[in-house]
């Protein structure tokens, strides 16, 4: 099982390298360290969100409200900053995380306590969160000049040669890796998605685990909300509209099974980077950015066909072993 997952991630990594190589033939500058770290930085927010979405998808749920959560928290932090510029930025990041977690909590409680299908819950909160942004902001924009310099500077500040935005992504990646591979809670996420009934018999509280996954994805969306607003230095109702589908797409391309229980941190990160490279490469090789949507759509379809193939192969291998015994 682990060797198979390893090989799929490696295969995806090869596809990514091939993609970069393809761009390199047209525009050599793209493959430079500076340019590639720029692509990583540009994809950081997508990576953070994909990691949260992955935790939810592992438990056989889906969180379609991530982008609305991001936008709502982003608007809240921007307005908070505009109202109290003296508030230290690290505290603001913590507030963003807690606020996002609270919104995730709402999703989680509805799924856990009322057994409403996650797709319905998050479809509902997707529109509700987006509407609340309008209510609190009155449809107004929070523009760059209303934000404090420190608020806008944090994601751009450099630390050990990389922008802080990239470091947020790296810390999230490491955190998720430890959580999923080194803790009981991480195993529980896989167990709940792999076989909910069996998970109950091993003493895992399935509803509780799903709730935790939603809180985690909410917290990550919250942090991403601050990062988005401070990076683009503007907050309005429609920021990141439709981004939830990009996040799901990154997970699917990364080989995370929508049926739950299968997926790795490396997969989610590579899936997000795959989309990020496409997005950044198109203008470089002189293809109209209007092609982006169709290309990522095709990538999703190819990835899901490929995933289904390899998931099926696992079953066969296990059967063969059983026959041999």
């Amino acid at each position: 099982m682990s060797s198979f997952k390893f090989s799929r991630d490696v295969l995806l990594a090869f596809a990514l390298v091939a993609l970069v190589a393809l761009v390199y033939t047209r525009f050599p500058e793209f493959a430079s360290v500076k340019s590639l770290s720029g692509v990583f930085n540009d994809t950081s927010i997508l990576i953070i969100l994909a990691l949260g979405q992955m935790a939810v998808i592992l438990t056989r749920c889906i969180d379609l409200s991530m982008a609305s959560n991001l936008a709502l928290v982003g608007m809240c932090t921007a307005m908070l900053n505009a109202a109290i510029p003296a508030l230290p930025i690290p505290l603001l990041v913590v507030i963003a995380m807690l606020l996002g977690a609270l919104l995730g909590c709402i999703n989680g409680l509805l799924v856990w306590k009322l057994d409403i299908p996650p797709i319905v819950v998050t479809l509902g909160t997707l529109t509700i969160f987006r509407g609340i942004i309008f209510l609190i902001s009155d449809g107004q924009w929070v523009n760059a000049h209303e934000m404090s310099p420190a608020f806008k500077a944090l994601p751009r500040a450099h630390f050990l040669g990389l922008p802080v935005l990239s470091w947020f992504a790296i810390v999230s990646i490491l955190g998720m890796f430890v959580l999923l591979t080194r803790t009981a809670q991480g195993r529980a996420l896989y167990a709940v998605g792999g076989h909910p009934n069996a998970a109950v018999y091993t003493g895992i509280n399935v509803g509780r685990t799903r709730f935790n996954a939603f809180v985690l994805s909410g917290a990550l969306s919250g942090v991403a909300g601050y990062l988005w607003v401070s990076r683009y230095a503007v907050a309005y109702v429609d920021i990141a509209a439709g981004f939830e589908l990009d996040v799901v797409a990154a997970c699917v391309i990364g080989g995370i099974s929508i049926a739950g229980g299968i997926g790795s941190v490396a997969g989610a990160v590579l899936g997000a980077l795959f989309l990020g490279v496409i997005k950044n490469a198109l203008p470089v090789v002189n293809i109209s950015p209007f092609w982006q949507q169709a290309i990522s759509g095709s990538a999703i379809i190819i990835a899901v066909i490929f995933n289904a193939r390899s998931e099926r192969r696992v079953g066969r291998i296990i059967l063969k072993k059983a026959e041999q015994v």
Partner: protein
Amino acid sequence: MSSTDTKQGTSIPDRLRSPFTRAITSWEFLLLCVAILIFFLNVQASPYFLDPWNLSDATFNFTEKAMIAFAMALVIISGEIDLSVASIIALVSTCMGFLVQLGVDTPALVAAAILVGAACGAFNGVLVAGLGLPSIVVTIGTLSLFRGIAYIVLGDKAYSGYPESFAFFGQGYVWWVITFEMVLFAVVALLFYVLLHRTSFGRSTIAIGNNPTAALFAGIRVARVKFFLFVLTGIMSAVAAVCLTSRLGSTRPSIAAGWELEIVTMVVLGGVNILGGAGTIPGVVIAAIVMGMVTFGLGLLNVPGIVMSIFIGLLLIGVIALPIIIRRARQRVGS
């Protein structure tokens, strides 16, 4: 609802409740009460609501979406979902716009639209039914792909210049305030009612949603039924695309953006089980009218569209949460 009851081990009653009790405790009845309540609230809230021409205009809020919602209801009842419907509208509308530039006339335009819609649906169908892939991921993929093609063709431009005879579909009146779209909505609703509730195809759809394996053993061609349902959804999206394009008179690649979520909301609000296996067409019809009235009523009160979406979202979660809360409370009292 009964399926969840048996899952929780409730004993089977000695005799069924009377048809009358069943009717007034049904989802459709509850929804009808909500619809009537909203109607009177609207009448109270705005003096302009009861004007026949205003009400006629208000139907445009839901007729096009509802036509897709009927097909979507069948897809969801069969245990699948199609999130690519709004993108099919964009692609179909773009194709029609392209053909108009070549001087193609109305009948051929409509025929081409239906063909493109059916082809899009067949593409989804092959991936879901043929290859056995999860429909939610496949249709998220085709959601990007279909609209992506529209963006490639159009970019930031728009098609217009549709022939005058084409305007009838979205702007024509059959009699007094009765629009062509209303008539089409009623006819489509009737057709889907017959298809789901009066044919073996409809029974097969419900059976597949309840238990695909059992349905297969019962001799139902599961893959074929699912394939056909996706083609049907594609065709209905094309019909909606014809109406919408005709009403707007132009095509941009962002046409009907976000409709897929509204249509799913409509279907779920109509009492269709999102997990498959249960649902009725009358429920979807009432849900469509409820959503149309909420949107229109709040619009008359100058409530911005984005705030209306809060109501729609709350409505979606509320109508599903309420029966569950009530059932739990009743069980607690019972034990």
